[in-house]
């Protein structure tokens, strides 16, 4: 028999709350992008012979956008909370490139996986360094959409919660600018999603660690040897 044994560890990377967060977030972003795009470029569903009193089509699109916005925000706040109480892979510290090591890791990923001009083994059970940094950027984009979105919303709602965002319009100098930026940032999400989905497939294919299914079951498969070595390093760092 010609097969070599590769001992794999099954690592529980994404806990259930993280997985639920992920899919609610994905759904929210999809809905917000679609309804947002339609708010910017509405379809004219009816032509001729129609009386406004019978329809509320555009009103519903906006309603869905705003309702989803609330879900999106609270889901996001929950994730921040989980960054403090969740496991090692969910910890908020992963997302800030604060140490020299983090930058070294980012460089590795850039040269090995993105540009592919160097070869090195960089298996990480959680996200890799660049991915973490990208998520940090998307968190900022989330925050930005929430602030600009609720800023605009404060002008059309008497709700106390959106009233908390009254300061936003004066800061940006007008609703038009706010809408422009809010609209433009939508494309950040579109581009992010394309790259994100591709990279999941890429890693599933190249590393064979089961990333693609990890957001469903939570498991990734990592070589036993490397996992133990990483663990030791972590423990050493902790001291």
């Amino acid at each position, binding site marked *: *028999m*010609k*097969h*070599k*044994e*590769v001992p794999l560890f099954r690592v529980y990377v994404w806990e259930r709350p993280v997985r639920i967060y992920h899919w609610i977030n994905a759904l929210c972003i999809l809905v917000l992008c679609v309804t947002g*795009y339609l708010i*910017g*470029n*509405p*379809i*004219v*569903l*009816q*032509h*001729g012979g*129609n009386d*406004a*009193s*019978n*329809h*509320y*089509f*555009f*009103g519903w*699109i906006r309603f869905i956008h705003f309702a989803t916005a609330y879900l999106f925000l609270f889901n996001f706040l929950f994730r921040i909370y989980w960054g403090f109480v969740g496991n090692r892979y969910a910890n908020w510290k992963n997302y800030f490139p604060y140490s020299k090591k983090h930058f070294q890791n980012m460089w590795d990923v850039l040269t090995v996986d*993105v540009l*592919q001009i160097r070869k090195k083994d960089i298996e990480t059970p959680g996200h890799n360094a660049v991915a973490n940094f990208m998520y940090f950027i998307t968190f900022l984009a989330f925050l930005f959409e929430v602030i600009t979105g609720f800023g605009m919303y404060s*002008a*059309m709602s008497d709700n106390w919660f959106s009233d908390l965002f*009254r*300061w936003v*319009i*004066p800061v940006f*100098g*007008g*609703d*038009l600018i*706010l*809408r*422009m930026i809010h*609209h*433009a940032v*939508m*494309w950040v999400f*579109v*581009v992010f999603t*394309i*790259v994100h989905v*591709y990279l999941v497939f*890429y890693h599933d*294919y*190249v590393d*064979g660690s089961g990333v693609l299914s990890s957001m469903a079951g939570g498991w990734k498969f990592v070589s036993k040897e490397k996992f133990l070595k990483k663990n030791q390093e972590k423990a050493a760092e902790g001291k």
Partner: protein
Amino acid sequence: MDETTSSVWEEMKNKGYSRRDFLKFCAWMGAFIGVESTGISSVVRAMETKKRPAVIWLHLQECTCCSESFIRTSHPIVADIILDNISLDYTETLQAAAGHQAEAALAKSMKDNWGEYILLVEGSVPTGEDGVYCCIGGKTAEMRLKEAAEGAKAVIAWGNCASNGCVQAANPNPTTATPIHKIINGKPLIKVPGCPPIGEVMAGVIVHIMAFGTIPQLDGQGRPLAFYSRRVHDTCYRRPNYDAGLFVEEFDDENARKGYCLYKVGCRGPVTYNACGVTKWNEGTSFPIQSGHGCIGCSEADFWDHGPFYQHLASFPGFGIETTADKIGLGLGVATGVGIAAHAVITNISKKDEINEHIETSSVPDGDREGE
């Protein structure tokens, strides 16, 4: 100054208005500036007893459309009383005096009412080239404004020029036109933006100050809430069409004839704070949207730079006038797709060994692999 020692009521009596006219005027103005019906009596009392405030109206770098709008306020008494008597201590366009006489009148008015007068400013201040672009009576606009503001009780910025710079400040702003709030500080300042502002709104702001002796409640950008707290869109009579999804797509289509919403042909009502939908223009006759053209956002900062006016969002800055954020976004999306495809191909080449090794070293049940 004699004129400013009498009240509005005394002035009206002198002009031959009846008590009934006076009360009607107070009720109309009171309703307009947003006091409750029980508060009308305080407006009446103020108009009867309070000495009319001295008013100085400066014209800086502007086109006089604000004055034009003001003298067309629909209530005759507004023009007669407020304009004729109150604001005429000094105003370049409407005063009878000229030259040295006018300058002397201004100096006297400022001196007599130091710390008490209300300063109305129409126009922006060009600060470029030491202010040579606008000099009046041998002084630059900036000098005149600073001098006059010094002794003012409150300052009102008339129109978009004084409030935001307006057309003179539009890119590339050759004269460095500057809104007045960036020149003067330490004084209560009310912005009444619009190009021009609605005459009734202007009168309302003055009446508020006269009646209550205080400046009206302002929003985060310094505009009176009574007139600028709602977007044109919030009071637009075409709004039901917007909510229904009934839009004009071209100015000569069937939907335009039906009076549908103008959002898709560039209406800026959703991003513009003004009273057009309620007060309307020219004695309440109409307003742009009622005449079939979208709002161009004339009461918002930098609206000239947010073109073209026939898109509800401005073009993306730095990419030419036809380029919307969506075009750029779509371009980025496509570029990303191409990048990914290339990356996928390269991966299969450069990571071939690694992938093959994974396949080689995978555990396979005995006898499943061919040739074994």
